[in-house]
């Protein structure tokens, strides 16, 4: 705490501005009239002076910064517009381009107004002309004195006051106040609350990535209805009982072991986690222990600050535990090139750069990759900043290449051996045996040496007598030994003596057996040791490597030497922090740092609501989108830090809000006004991500194996994909696992970077080659084919059908209803039931006429059911189950 307080003081001394309420200027009445409302600046009343962050920076950034911005190498005309002092200084022309208060005397305005191609700015060839409206804004801004503001995301987080609203009853927590205040300004009503069945499915999917069981749905609905009755009986507006029930269920899901799995999935994308090394050779690595660490960290609700510190620098903590070391695998998740011709320096540079870019994207929401080759074109980060960060990561005891050509496959160092009690016990025994055998050998050799004169004498005699069969040696004595034997002892040198001694040992049966035993034990020890699972970790070199700026990012062109440092435009690394990864990690979670809390709560918001408050969750820079609800973002960021970086607390706030609990129905007025739902006048509705789609089908059908953690597994996979792409040998055929491995949660599916599981790619999963914090959500025919025909889903339909037929008695309608309940957490409506009923009857008639067809369908997938069912009925119900699994409502979270 003291350290942080000091850091704040340092920051103040360093002139870090504590601006008040940057968002206040932003939140002026905005007229939402079309789908692009967020991209364009809200209209500005003619009388009102433009706001720099809202109105001016986007113009300067997009149209001017590439040549008059932070990148010193690309700068033209000798002036920059991203900083006021510089903008007001003399340019190459000998005068400043901006004259505050005097647009007419400002060359900037003259140039943007110019009509001749040679004069006008921006130059026509860059194809970014300014509109009349933009020029007008620039003029009024200069007239108002050309005031600058720091870019919004770099201003320190201030806790905003919670706004007053005219319908306070709707407000369950602060989130709602901010959202409703905005809706009221826009004149839009919020949507009614979603029904309890929708809500529990939404909660379960959001917090565990699994659908609720029918029993959970039933209990939740009953409890909510009972609580509502109690509340109504108490006072007119009371909802305390209902709230208590709802919150209890939220905690129920947050406490589930599957919560950690759900949260880990997003983190694995960001951390570029995979089971192979990537690049051309793309061989396996062992990294699941790190993945399990992430799940465990979320489940135990480790503070995000500690979560950060352990992953960036767990190995540098005092008395680091094995778990803290495992955590550092985070920055070993990058790809590793094992191609034959790799030049180590080239890829060492690649790995370090990847770590910098990942850190910047994930904690700072900044596109540092731009600054690898030159100063950033838009944001205030220099190439020196990049290599300052690089230096933190340039000190790992690693090679630039993997284990290519090594006879034994093993993770590329540095790695950590995981606890493996059985193997360790076996090793201990082997080592003890070895420790026993080695002195025996030593003793025997001493004995043999002492007996050497007698042995030699005996041998001479034997040779003279003509080698009787029952005395050693049985094999002919080699020529060189014979020669030595003839040599008088006094004339023999050391090498002669050793040679003779070695021969004596090799012909001694007991000695030979002992030596073989020792060799065998050594080999066994090596082999057993290799069986102990390992995981990649970070480890510092005793002597730091020298880091130099790489000109144009090229490892063959080192420039100035730099030392580890944080970017100059952010609060400085406190003087009492070490200039190593541990210092960097602590800096990342210093409350004075304006970015990490904002960037992190925004990603949580994105997970729950589908779109971040800042839509460009990977870019909080000047080219990124500004937040839709800036005050809410800051309030959440501040609350996150105040709560001690409590992830569950922030998620709980989100999912208990009225905002979250709204119906997701796309109201026609909203499709017109706000089709992307950025104003949050309805609940989130979007497609489940790849992993949770399959998990949902497995869970609903009862196939899901819920084991948490362990080595990655290989479920069903279409044949031929690996053979087409991977290197020549047959070992690259994908061999599916057996038993439980086929039905684990999708996050445990073996992730091969060159050929990720096709069902993952079809549903927009990234390749996991670099940090990714936002997935696309496409809607395509290949997805339809996957859900219709993949044996995974056919088998799931088969099992879902079996549950429908066996779990709820013989009535068809009840059975069909059970299918809906298992997948959608609700009963079908009468018209839906009619479609299902007709579907079943049609399929039944067909399969009764074509019994083979049903039998064939019921053979898809390896798992068999325990019960014998009538094939025609089961086949028909499988068709219905597959229908349910393919509904839009099924693939969507509503």
């Amino acid at each position, binding site marked *: 705490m003291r350290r942080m307080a000091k850091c704040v003081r340092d920051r103040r001394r360093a002139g870090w501005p504590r601006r008040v309420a940057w968002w206040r200027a932003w939140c002026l009445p905005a007229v939402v009239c079309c789908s692009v409302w967020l991209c364009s600046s809200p209209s500005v009343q003619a009388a009102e002076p433009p706001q720099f962050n809202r109105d001016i920076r986007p113009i300067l950034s997009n149209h001017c910064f590439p040549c008059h911005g932070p990148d010193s190498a690309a700068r033209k005309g000798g002036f920059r517009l991203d900083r006021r002092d510089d903008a007001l200084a003399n340019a190459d022309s000998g005068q400043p381009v901006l004259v505050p208060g005097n647009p007419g005397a400002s060359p900037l305005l003259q140039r943007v107004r110019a009509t001749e191609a040679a004069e006008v700015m921006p130059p026509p060839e860059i194809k970014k002309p300014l509109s009349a409206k933009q020029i007008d804004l620039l003029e009024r801004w200069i007239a108002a004195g050309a005031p600058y503001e720091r870019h919004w995301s770099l201003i320190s987080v201030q806790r905003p006051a919670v706004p007053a609203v005219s319908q306070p009853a709707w407000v369950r927590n602060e989130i709602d106040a901010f959202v409703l205040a905005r809706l009221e300004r826009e004149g839009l009503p919020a949507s009614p609350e979603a029904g309890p069945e929708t809500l529990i499915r939404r909660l379960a999917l959001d917090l565990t990535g699994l659908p609720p069981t029918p029993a959970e749905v039933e209990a939740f609905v009953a409890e909510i209805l009972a609580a509502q009755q109690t509340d109504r009986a108490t006072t007119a507006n009371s909802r305390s009982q209902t709230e208590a029930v709802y919150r209890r269920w939220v905690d129920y899901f947050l406490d589930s072991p599957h919560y950690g799995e759900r949260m880990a999935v997003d983190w694995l994308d960001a951390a570029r986690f995979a089971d192979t090394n990537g690049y051309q050779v793309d061989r396996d690595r062992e990294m699941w222990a790190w993945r399990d660490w992430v799940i465990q960290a979320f489940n135990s609700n480790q503070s995000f600050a500690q979560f950060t510190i352990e992953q960036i620098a767990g190995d540098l903590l005092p008395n680091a535990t094995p778990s803290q070391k495992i955590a550092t695998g985070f920055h070993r998740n990058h790809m590793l090139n094992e191609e034959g011709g790799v030049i180590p320096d080239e890829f060492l540079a690649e790995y370090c750069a990847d770590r910098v870019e990942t850190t910047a994207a994930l904690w700072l929401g900044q596109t540092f990759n731009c600054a690898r080759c030159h100063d950033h074109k838009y944001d205030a980060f220099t190439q020196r900043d990049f290599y300052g960060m690089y230096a933190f990561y340039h000190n790992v005891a690693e090679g630039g290449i993997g284990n290519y050509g090594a006879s034994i496959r093993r993770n590329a160092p540095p790695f950590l051996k995981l606890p493996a009690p059985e193997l360790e016990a076996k090793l201990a025994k082997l080592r003890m045996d070895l420790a026993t055998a080695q002195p025996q050998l030593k003793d025997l050799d001493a004995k043999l040496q002492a007996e050497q004169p007698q042995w030699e004498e005996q041998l001479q005699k034997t040779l003279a007598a003509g080698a009787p069969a029952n005395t050693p040696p049985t094999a002919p004595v080699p020529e060189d030994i014979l020669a030595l034997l003839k040599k008088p002892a006094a004339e023999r040198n050391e090498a002669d003596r050793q040679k003779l001694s070695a021969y004596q040992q090799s012909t001694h049966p007991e000695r030979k057996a002992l030596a073989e035993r020792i060799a065998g034990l050594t080999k066994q020890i090596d082999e057993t040791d290799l069986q102990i699972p390992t995981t990649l970790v970070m480890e510092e070199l005793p002597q730091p490597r020298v880091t130099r700026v790489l000109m144009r990012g090229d490892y063959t062109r080192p420039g100035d030497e730099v030392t580890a440092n944080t970017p100059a435009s952010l609060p400085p690394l406190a003087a009492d922090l070490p200039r190593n990864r541990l210092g960097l990690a602590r800096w990342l979670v210093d409350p004075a740092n304006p970015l990490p809390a904002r960037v992190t709560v925004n990603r949580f918001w994105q997970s729950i609501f589908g779109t971040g408050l800042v839509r460009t969750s990977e*870019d909080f820079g000047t080219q990124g989108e500004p937040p839709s609800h800036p005050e809410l973002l800051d309030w959440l960021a501040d609350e996150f830090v105040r709560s001690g970086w409590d992830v569950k607390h922030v998620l709980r706030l989100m999912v208990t809000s009225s905002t979250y609990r709204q119906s997701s129905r796309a109201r026609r007025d909203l499709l017109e006004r706000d089709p992307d739902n950025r104003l949050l006048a309805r609940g989130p509705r979007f497609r489940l991500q790849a992993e949770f789609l399959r998990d949902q089908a497995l869970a609903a059908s009862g196939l899901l194996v819920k084991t948490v953690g362990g080595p990655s597994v290989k479920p069903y996979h279409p044949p031929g994909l690996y053979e087409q792409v991977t290197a020549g040998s047959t070992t690259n055929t994908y061999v599916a696992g057996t038993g439980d491995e086929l039905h684990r949660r999708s996050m445990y599916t073996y992730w091969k970077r060159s050929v990720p599981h096709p069902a993952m790619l079809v549903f927009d999963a990234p390749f996991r080659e670099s940090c990714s914090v936002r997935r696309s959500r496409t809607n395509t025919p*290949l997805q339809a084919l996957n859900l219709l025909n993949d044996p995974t889903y056919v088998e799931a339909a088969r099992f879902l059908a079996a549950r429908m037929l066996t779990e709820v008695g013989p009535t068809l309608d009840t059975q069909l209803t059970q299918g809906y309940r298992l997948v959608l957490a609700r009963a079908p409506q009468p018209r839906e039931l009619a479609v299902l009923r007709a579907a079943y009857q049609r399929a039944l008639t067909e399969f009764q006429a074509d019994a083979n067809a049903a039998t064939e369908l019921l053979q898809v997938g390896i798992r068999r059911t325990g019960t014998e069912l009538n094939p025609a009925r089961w086949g028909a119900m499988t068709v219905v189950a597959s229908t349910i699994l393919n509904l839009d409502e099924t693939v969507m979270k509503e």
Partner: protein
Amino acid sequence: MSVESLFALSRRQFVSRSAVGLGTAALAHLLGEQLQASGGLPGCPQHIPKAKRVIYLTQAGAPSQLELFDHKPQLKEQFDKDLPDSVRQGQRLTGMTAGQARFPICPSMYNFSQQGQAGLWLSELLPHTSRIADRMCVIRSLHTEAINHDPAMTLLQTGHQIAGRPSLGAWLSYGLGSENDDLPAFVVMISRPSGPTNAQPLHERMWGAGFLSPRYQGVRFSPGKDPVLFLSNPPGITNERRRSMLDDVSSLNRLRLEDDPDPEIQARIDQYEMAFRLQRSVPELTDLSQEPKSVFEAYGPESQKPGTFAANCLLARRLVERGVRFVQLYHRGWDQHANLPSGIKSQCYDTDQPSAALVEDLARRGLLDDTLVIWGGEFGRTVYSQGKLTANDYGRDHHPRCYSIWMAGGGIKPGTMYGETDDFSYNIVKDPVHIHDLNATVLHLLGINHKALTYRYQGRDFRLTDIHGSIVEGILA
């Protein structure tokens, strides 16, 4: 992985069906996204294109220019002499030969002769390709920066060595959309070498969409039951049963749509219809039974074996006939670090006849005029031998400073040799062409200014040619 073109019909259907009463903004919003997906970008192509589609015959592993296209007769006299330092100029070598004690000059074992009226110098390994000499333009001065396969192939495909950018095919799908409603705009087919050569590993990212929407990603067509993943119905489900089942799915989705006018529901209904159409159009496409015997004879003996380069060449023709925008074949196995003479011969057996047959077939059908065919790999090979050099055996290491490819059709000047290398095929002495220049030229032929096809990602307007690339005027017809 998605089928960009398949959105075309979706959009039309959407327009016709959306009379249900969607707000115009919602409609515009949805169309905005889908317009891009189907018809390409507004204003694209930007000028009248010479080529409407591309067949890219990617030779993975780096074919040796010295044995195929870059004739260096004077090397014969320098057999096993040391490569002069003045030629190498201290340029970097891969980790495989950097430690070699000598760099012995290794002339091609194979002879060259002049072919066609244009007199292009081509290797005896390419008897069929020699036949189309007057249709080809051989570029002998292509160069790259990458010295190992993965970065080099990534650069060739995406204009950047580091993974994460869209491939050429994805850019074209994004910019130009598709001419076919029932097939993907960007199809990828991969073949293995028939010889004992180690097949070059590839990577799904090489035909990926990078930061563009995954819907622009190349769709892999494979030999076998399911040319497209999960295309066939499960056993027991006939097409009729599938149709009935899809009607049920559709009915239930429509009931939902009555309650909730989310355009996503309508889009889902349409995607399922397109999936059904794919189930019909793809088997029709891949069924070669109606092709006459003469066609198989032209493409060679391997063309009847599914999954070979020859069979894929024939499929490529069928795909472009149906309006598929970008067909990319990969043939693996060109990485001859050792035993080059036998390895390259086997590779040429796989590729020479079908490549030539494809060009002739396209010409016969009047498709060559607006179809661009490109044949080549990710870099070249060294003039010095990797490992032991004998009279009839040697290997060659990776060489990024110059290599050869050929192009034909859509807007390419036929019967041309472009660019020259030094006497060692080590450095370029005339008309260098960088990968970016090649890509700029390909885009130009397709009616696109490579500087103007951009996509804003992480705040920056990215393009295929990064900040480089000039059109290679000398190869344009």
